[in-house]
């Protein structure tokens, strides 16, 4: 199974939860350094959301459909 990992600034949280199906193009958070919307590049199911306190980011793991 192909997975992609995206990182979102933790300040704004993640607009998805584990188990959600995310269509390509949906906004799922905010990019850390730029503050721009974080857009899912491919469709898939969210399998993990992990908080990284060091970088103050969420790592979002998506199983690509």
């Amino acid at each position, binding site marked *: 199974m192909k997975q992609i990992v995206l990182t979102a*600034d*933790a*300040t*704004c949280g993640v607009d998805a939860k584990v188990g959600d199906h995310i269509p390509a193009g949906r906004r799922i958070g905010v990019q850390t350094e730029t503050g721009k919307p974080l857009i899912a590049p491919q469709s898939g199911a969210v399998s993990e959301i992990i*908080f990284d*306190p060091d*970088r*103050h980011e*969420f790592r979002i793991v998506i199983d690509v459909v």
Partner: protein
Amino acid sequence: MKQTTPSAIALGFLSILLVASAANAQTNFQYETPKDSKDYIGFYEPSPDITPYPNPAGVKNVILLIGDGLGHNQITAARLVAAGPDGKLHMERIATASSITTHAANAKITDSAAAGTALACGIKTNNGMIGMDPDGKRYQTILQAAKHKGMSTGIAVTCEVTHATPAAFTAHVKSRSSEARIAPQLLEQTDVILGGGRRYFLPADAGGRQPEGVDLIKKAVDSGYTYASDAAGLNAARAPRLLGLFQNAALETIPPEPDLAELTAKAIEILSANPHGFFLMVEGSQIDWACHNNNIRQTIRQTLLFDKAVKVAVDFALRDRSTLILVTSDHETGGLSIKNWDPETRKLDVAWSTGGHTGVPVPLYALGPGARRFRGQLDNTDVPKHIAALLGIDDFPKPLD
């Protein structure tokens, strides 16, 4: 209804029942705290007295304690579990209580960098920026202003000492992620530095992240700091300047590592030797992290570890009578709400609205000389301005460029 004593509540904590369900982006948790446990918050002694602490006059020292991510409901959850609905946390015994708004220059929801800069420099900046305004103009922090006045200065945190909040009091960088650039700035005007983050002080060949072979621990020792890496080293330290880095990354907040209350006590012991006074910033850094994980058990534990440090600071202030204590937060995290607390079943029902930060005002408690200045609805930028005024520091906020 059966009465529940604070001590019985503090002992009841072993079995945790978390039932999560999601609806409309809200997550509900049920949290059970049976009566026969003491392992998880056994370190915490609820106050047997709930009368307000007294306020003396004349500011010599300032201790600013920041609970990262700490909102009113995190405090409420901790109180219910540790002290009961009629008890009080130590911070809640501080009579002057108000709240502060927290927005950043470029966002209604702040991060710790912008909020830390507001609390340290008295200015709004963009999320991610440390010690400078949105145009990149550096501003003097209240810690640096205190040092310039002849006071001793310190920080004690449970995160890496280069993380956003301590950085905001000691450094000036455009991005909070520039921690290798923040580390040398910490050593410029901070006499006591206690927390995690050893890796940002060591060169790459020693497993660190300092470029070009720079060893900032060696540099610190060469310039007069005592270096401590464990509790024994911390206890033995007597020098006027102390660098204590107890983990490569953030603190683990479990023994044998010294806890935040011990770090606070040591910082006060060293800094209070200066007859001209001191400024100390203490941060309970990991309340925020627990809330990002929507973990109520850790949220309560980290809040109580922070409150234990508050008690150390308050006890010193009550003896010293010339120390201003401020307890506040940079922002609330998680959108925590309390749905129910059943003292008989010991179940705490909570809900989280987000895994991120929220824009609600956060608590501010003030104790000691000048405390009355902190009444009413304030903004986070007001906090260092009032501190500066009480310390007789003119020209604040002050640009450095």
